[in-house]
C-alpha cells in the first residue's frame, strides 16, 4: 500500500507547489491547502500500512505487524489545525481581493523595498 500512497503524495505535493507558484490569489490558497493535506497523508503513510493488524502490541506472541495508532492522532490534530487555517486563509483571500480589487498576486507589490 505504501507505494501508491507515495506516488499520490508526490503528485499532490507537485500540484500544490505548482498552484502556489501561480499568480492568482485563490490558486495560491488552493495550493497551500493541497500541501497541508500532503503532509497529513505523508504522516499517515509513516505509520506503516498493514491490513488486519493490531493497533497496539501487548507483548503478544505471533504479532509481527502492527499499525501505529499515534500517527492517526497526529493527523487528526494537524487536520483540525489545517482546517482552521484554511477557513482563515479563504476569508483573508476574500478581504485581500476586496481591498486590492484584483485576483493577481503581482498587484500586491506596494510593500516591495
Amino acid at each position, binding site marked *: 500500500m505504501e507505494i501508491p500512497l507515495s506516488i499520490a503524495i508526490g503528485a499532490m505535493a507537485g500540484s500544490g507547489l505548482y498552484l502556489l507558484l501561480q499568480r492568482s490569489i485563490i490558486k495560491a490558497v488552493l495550493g497551500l491547502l493541497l500541501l497541508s493535506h500532503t503532509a497529513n497523508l505523508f*504522516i499517515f503513510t*509513516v505509520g506503516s500500512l498493514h491490513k488486519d493488524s493490531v493497533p497496539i502490541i501487548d507483548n503478544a506472541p505471533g504479532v509481527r505487524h502492527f499499525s501505529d495508532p499515534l500517527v492517526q492522532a497526529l493527523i487528526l490534530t494537524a487536520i483540525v489545525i489545517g482546517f482552521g487555517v484554511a477557513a482563515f486563509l479563504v476569508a483573508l483571500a476574500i478581504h485581500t481581493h476586496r481591498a486590492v480589487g484584483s485576483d493577481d498576486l503581482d498587484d500586491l507589490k506596494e*510593500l516591495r523595498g
Partner: protein
Amino acid sequence: MILRNCAVEQLFNSCAGFDSAVWWVVLVAAWGRSRFSRLLGVLTVLLLVIVGFFNLYWVRADGIKATSLGDWPAPFGIVLVADLFSALMVLAASLAAFAAVIFIVFAHDLWQQKYILPIMLMVLAGVNGAFMTGDIFNLFVFFEVTLIGSYALMAVGGRKLQMEAAFKYVVINVFASTLFLIGVGLLYAEVGTLNMAHISQRVSDAGEQNIVTAAGMLLLVAFGVKAAVAPFHFWLPGAYTYIPSGVASFFGGVLTKLGVYAMVRVFTLVLGHDVNLYQPIFIFIACLSMVIGSFGALAQRELRNLFTWDIISQVGYMIMGLALFSVASLGGAIFFIVQYIPVKTSLFLCAGTIEKLCGTGDLSKLGGLARVYPILGVVFLVPALSLAGVPPFSGFWGKLALVQSGITGATWESYTVVAFALFGSLVTLLVMSKIWQSVFWGDPKRSYLSTRGNQIGVIVPTALVGLGTIILVFAAGELLDITTDAARQLIHTNDYINAVNIVMVK
C-alpha cells in the same frame, strides 16, 4: 522540599496553561466591555511576569523541572520542561508583552483594543507553550497557536497594505509549517517517538542516519523561515510596518525569536550529535543575515521598516552563537536573545510613539524631536545604543561574549563569523546614528508641532522597558552567569534527559 517541588510544578504548569485558560475567560466574558477587558488583559500579563520570575528563580535553585500533562507518563503523554533557557525566554517574552499591552491600552482606539487584547493573550499562550514544551509535535501545535493568533492580528484594521502584508505572511508561514510537519513525520518514522529527550537518546544510540539528516534539514528551513534568517528573510520587511504599532512591538521583539528558540533547542538537544554537519550551514546563514540585515536597514527611509530589517541582522548574532557551538558562545547567544527582546520591543514602541505624536514614521518628514519631546529622545537613545553594541549597554555584553567565544574557537570559520559580526555591528551603529540625526536632531518640522499630543501615556511603557535595559547594564554579570549555566544545560543534554526520565514510563 516536597511542598516546594509541588509549588514549582504548579507554577510552571500555570505559565503555559494559565494563560491559555485566561484568554478564553477574557475573550468570552469581556468581548463587549472594553474597560473590564483591558484591566483583565493587563493583570493577566502582569501575573505572568511574576510567575515567570518565580519560575526562573526556582529552576535556577533546583535544576531542570519536568512535568507530564494530565499525568500521562512520557513518552506517550506530553511533557512540559523548564530549563534555564526556556525560563529566561518565558520571562523575557512576558516582559515584552506587558510593555506592549500597556502601550496598546494607552495608544490605540477602543475598537482595536477589543480585538487586539484577547488575541494577543492567545499569541502569548502559544509562545510560552512553545518555550516550555518537551514534545516536538506539541512544539508544532504551539507554533500554530501562536501563528493563528498572529495571522488575525496582522489583519486587524483591514487596510489595503495591511491585507497585502497579512496575505504574504500567512502564505509563507503556512508553507513553513507544512515543512515543519513533514520534518516531524520523518523524525517519527525513523526513531518512533516524539518526546525530544527520548529522540535525543535514540538518535545518539543509532548514529548518523540519512533520514534524520533529511528531517533536520526540513526543520532547519522551517525554523529559518520563522526566525527570518537570510536567505529566508524575504517575507519579513514590510510585514510589521502597517499593523497596529503596539502589536508590532510585541511581534518584533518576540515572534521571530520563537523560531530562534526552536532552532537552538532542536539543534542542541535533538540533533546536537550531528553538529559537524550543520555547523557550516549555520555559519553561512549567520554571516549572510548580519550583512543583508544591516545593509537593508541602512537603505530604509521609514522607521518601522528600518527596525524590521534590523531584526534580520540581529537574528544573525543569535545563530552565530549556535554555529560556534560551545558553552561560551551559546551563553553569549542566550544573553543576546534575552537582552534583545526588551530592547527591540522598546525601539518598536518608540517608533509607535513617534507615529502617534507626529502622525508619520517617515524619516524625511521628521526632525528636531529632541527639542520637542526630550524624554522620548532619552528613551530612544538607550535601546538604540544597546542595539548597536555600545558599552556599557546590554547589547555590548552579549556581543562581547559572542566575539570572545569566536576568537577562542580559533578556526578560520570562527574568525570569519567574528569579522562579519564586528562589521555588522558597525553598520548597525551607522543606522542608529542615521535615525538619531534625521529624527531627533535639526529643526522641528511645523506640520506636527500644531498637533502636539500628550506624550506621557505612550512614553510610560517605553520608559519602563528602557529602565529594564538600564538595569541589565548593572546586572550583566549576573545574567551572563545564568545564561552560561543555561548554555551548559543545552550542550550537556544529560541534565535535560534525566529530568524527563523522572516522568518517563518505567
